[in-house]
């Protein structure tokens, strides 16, 4: 890191470089998903128009929507829209709500189709709330277990961290979700499980998600705390007369938090995968449920929109993670 004005220049350079790389990544992702969806067999128009629609109607709709053009032409047209902030319209969902995939092809009562952007913007806050709560739960468990494990390598706190990590990572999230719903919701009646009618409905899904995240946090914390405690600056700090508590809290933990942050960036996609499954089990109205439904209904514009938004989120989160990591540990240069 540089001092004063140099630091600002460094930050600006860093942001420009990383954002440029990010744009390329998002572009590649969109192209990949776009091509895959069109190469793979399965005609979405058939689903949109209803099974009974005659072939000429299907061809007509496909023609109107430009789905019979060459893939590169379609892609350029699509990206043109994306650059103007237009993610297109859902194939299937009407603006009013429920899906109409099965409706008859000549049904004129069918309303305007929903904007992909609106669908994502409506569901994203729910997912964010779920993810943040899950992260909080995971940290509450992982911080004490992981730090203790790292401070006593080879002793029982270390074993506890190992066993707890192995146990949590071996619980398939969908199975755990079902079992917890059965025990906590059906049998004991402590927590509501299905749907969303208030904050309480976030708790159970968040617990399941936290169990999935916690092992990674525990493992990363144990390893990095143990590594930091072996470093010279820790033993020197003790000679300098700094108390043990302060050494652990202010010095070792501060440096051990860098790998934890990086983990957050790398494991973002895993978190999203977990969100998908958990939202599906608990019928939680977030981005994950939207994604699964979009896939099952072959709603191409929606799948593409979600892929673009998630890869953009991935890029942004990784930039933030690296920025924060540099401020914590100035030796890191990105």
């Amino acid at each position, binding site marked *: 890191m540089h001092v004063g004005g140099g630091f600002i220049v460094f930050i600006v350079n860093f942001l420009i470089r990383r954002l440029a790389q990010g744009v390329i990544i998002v572009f590649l992702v969109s192209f990949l998903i776009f091509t895959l969806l069109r190469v793979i067999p*399965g005609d979405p128009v058939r689903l949109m128009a209803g099974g009974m629609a005659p072939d000429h109607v299907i061809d007509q709709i496909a023609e109107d929507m430009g789905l019979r053009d060459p893939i590169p032409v379609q892609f350029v047209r699509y990206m043109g829209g994306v650059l103007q902030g237009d993610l297109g319209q859902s194939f299937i969902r009407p603006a009013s709500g429920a899906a109409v995939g099965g409706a008859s092809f000549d049904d004129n009562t069918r309303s305007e189709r929903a904007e992909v952007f609106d669908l994502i913007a409506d569901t994203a806050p729910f997912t964010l709330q779920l993810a943040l709560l899950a992260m909080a739960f995971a940290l509450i468990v992982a911080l004490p277990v992981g730090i203790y494990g790292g401070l006593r390598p080879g002793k029982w706190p270390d074993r506890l961290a*190992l066993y707890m990590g192995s146990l949590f990572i071996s619980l398939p999230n969908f199975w755990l979700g079902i079992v917890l719903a059965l025990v906590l919701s059906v049998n004991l009646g402590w927590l509501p499980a299905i749907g969303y009618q208030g904050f309480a409905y976030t708790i159970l899904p968040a617990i399941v998600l936290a169990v999935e995240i916690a092992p990674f946090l525990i493992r990363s914390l144990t390893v990095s705390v143990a590594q930091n405690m072996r470093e010279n600056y820790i033993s020197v700090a003790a000679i300098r007369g700094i108390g043990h508590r302060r050494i652990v809290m202010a010095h070792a933990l501060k440096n051990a938090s860098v790998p934890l942050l990086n983990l957050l960036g790398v494991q973002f996609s895993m978190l999203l995968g977990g969100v998908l499954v958990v939202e599906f089990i608990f019928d939680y109205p977030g981005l994950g449920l939207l994604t699964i439904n979009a896939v099952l209904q072959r709603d191409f514009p929606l799948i593409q929109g979600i892929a673009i938004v998630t890869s953009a989120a991935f890029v942004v989160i990784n930039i933030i993670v690296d920025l924060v990591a540099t401020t914590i540990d100035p030796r890191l240069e990105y």
Partner: protein
Amino acid sequence: MTNISNIDIPAVDNVQALTIAQRVVLGAWRSYEFRVGFFVFSAMVLLAIFWPMISSIDPLKINIRAKLMPPAFMGEGWSWTHPMGTDQLGRDMLMRSLVGLRYSLLIGLTTVVVMLAVGALVGLLAGYRGGLTDTILMRITDAQLSIPMIILAIAILGVARPTIPAIILVLGLSGWPVYARVMRSVVMAERKREFVRGATILGASDLRIMFLLLLPICLPPIAFVAVLDIARMMIFESVLGFLGLGVQPPTPTFGNIIADGRKYLVNAWWIATVPGIFLFLTLISLNLMGAALERSRNRVHGGEA
């Protein structure tokens, strides 16, 4: 990776005679977790392989008269014919779970082999060649890392037909980037060392150096950690099955049995629970072995991850 020969190893003569891989396995074997995991895992694998051969029960045979029987000692109407109970169509839960375990293991193992092969190749090429090859390969890797793997998997399997090879290919192809990254960094470190330069001077071709010199050194430390990924892939396979995007019924898999059992959760809790327990036992044994191997590898390689 540090120079192995420079690490201070307690001077026991026969230790030096072992290869690094053997030392890692031996080190893991000494830990209690590894042995427990190994025995549980072996028991599960043997059961999954041999029980369906020995037993005369057909996992697909419907017997309505014997439907919804609870597991042994767990309520009224159980019998030794079906020690784990039966499902809503009177099919034996033990047999269905074991057949599910077969598919799960098959798909988990093959997927990790595909992941490892693709990842190691990309990483080897990128790390050894460097320059433009490296940049292009790594940008592709980054792009793929930024697509949540499960979205990719369900997008492909949801739109195409989920057959077993398709599942293996999709999971394998979406999981390789991490291996590519690790492999690349290891290869980049090794490539600058003496023996590679020596081989180059002696006229060894690039292919020879990559596959005969670098690969045997760089692959084992990565392959040990891949044990953990077998467990991860088995979870993915069951998630896909649960979403209806895995191996299709009537073939029983953990995912589709549990998805079925969810409907009968209140009256017949065992339909969803029994396969879950089999899956959990297999996963935890794999994870214990994987964790022990990883720790042992880190010790052998001087604490480097």
